[in-house]
């Protein structure tokens, strides 16, 4: 079993970095076969480690005026790419992996609702609470994959 957790955001921008906090927390669980990456943003060179994983969990902040504190959704292959940016989103990164390596692992995006992206601010209380829920969801995802891995042997 080989799970990759990628949390991304800017650590100077409050809730924007919630994905990174979560990736760090998962890393502290010290689970064998679980690799965590905390990054400022998604970069095309991640395709290599994505291709070698059996499950990828992207964790990002979501700035929206409403919606669930934590959303879990499967990442589908992208049909188009952001035209101007130097950063990627999970779907296009997954597609890039597929295109380069000929395969891609199943991937999930956990988006945690963000409330405050002020310079130098810590995680807001609401987003902190949501982060706990996100961690529980990740534990569930990893657990399910492990069971599937065992039964598949």
């Amino acid at each position: 079993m080989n799970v990759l957790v990628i949390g991304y955001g800017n650590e100077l921008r409050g809730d924007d970095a919630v994905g990174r906090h979560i990736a760090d927390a998962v890393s502290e669980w010290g689970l064998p076969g679980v690799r965590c990456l905390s990054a400022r943003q998604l970069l095309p060179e991640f395709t290599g480690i994505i291709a070698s994983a059996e499950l990828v969990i992207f964790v990002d902040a979501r700035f929206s005026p409403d919606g669930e504190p934590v959303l879990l959704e499967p990442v589908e292959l992208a049909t188009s790419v952001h035209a101007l940016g130097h950063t990627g989103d999970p779907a296009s990164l997954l597609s890039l992996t597929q295109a380069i390596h000929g395969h891609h692992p199943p991937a999930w995006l956990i988006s945690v609702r963000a409330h405050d992206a002020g310079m130098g601010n810590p995680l807001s209380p609401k987003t902190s609470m949501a982060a706990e829920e996100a961690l529980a969801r990740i534990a569930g995802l990893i657990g399910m994959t492990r069971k599937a891995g065992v039964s598949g042997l």
Partner: protein
Amino acid sequence: MAAKTLTIDGRLVSAQSEQTVLDAAREAGISIPTLCHLEGVSEVGACRMCLVEITGCPKLEPACVTRVVEGMDVRTGSDRLHEYRRMIVELLFAERNHVCAVCVANNHCELQDLAADLGIDHVRYDYLFPLLPVDISHERFGIDHNRCVLCTRCVRVCDEIEGAHTWDVAGRGGNARVITDLNQPWGTAQSCTSCGKCVQACPTGAIFRQGSTVGEMERDRSQLEFIVTARKKKQWIV
């Protein structure tokens, strides 16, 4: 000096009668988290990190200032204690502006270590975001009140080891601040001998060497212990 026998976390431990529970536990290899405690200077029991449960005692006691008693039964790591310690550290984070990512002590910080040890990945309290100054008027050192946890280690090393008593605490409650001399810029504090003991003592990035950049502020506490041992025991052990 009579030896006392007590129980810590179910283990029988013997200790000197004048020892504190903290000392006895550490000698027995039982670790109790601390923050204001610093080897070589007096205890103040200010931070409450080392609170322990003692059978028959209705309240929690700080291990650093509680003397051992014959037959004492101490617990250092219950769920209740863990929750209180967690709360204390979270409140410290909420009280001032600790931006670890750009702090000079990042990855060399006792507050950060405590948070990690206690499994704190978020703070449940509202941050106060106080407007606090940075004083870098001293030629060699600086203090950023945003990162101060009021442990008073600087006050004690300056008074008890250096004998200068440049540092003290002014104000009460949320307005408390460590100050130099008569609450004046550090660079103008005439009692300061620029010895740097406070820099070695500070557990966070609050007191730092001038010119330090992110994550660069490492301390050498053994220097303080060396001086104290040399003075008290006349032993110059490096």
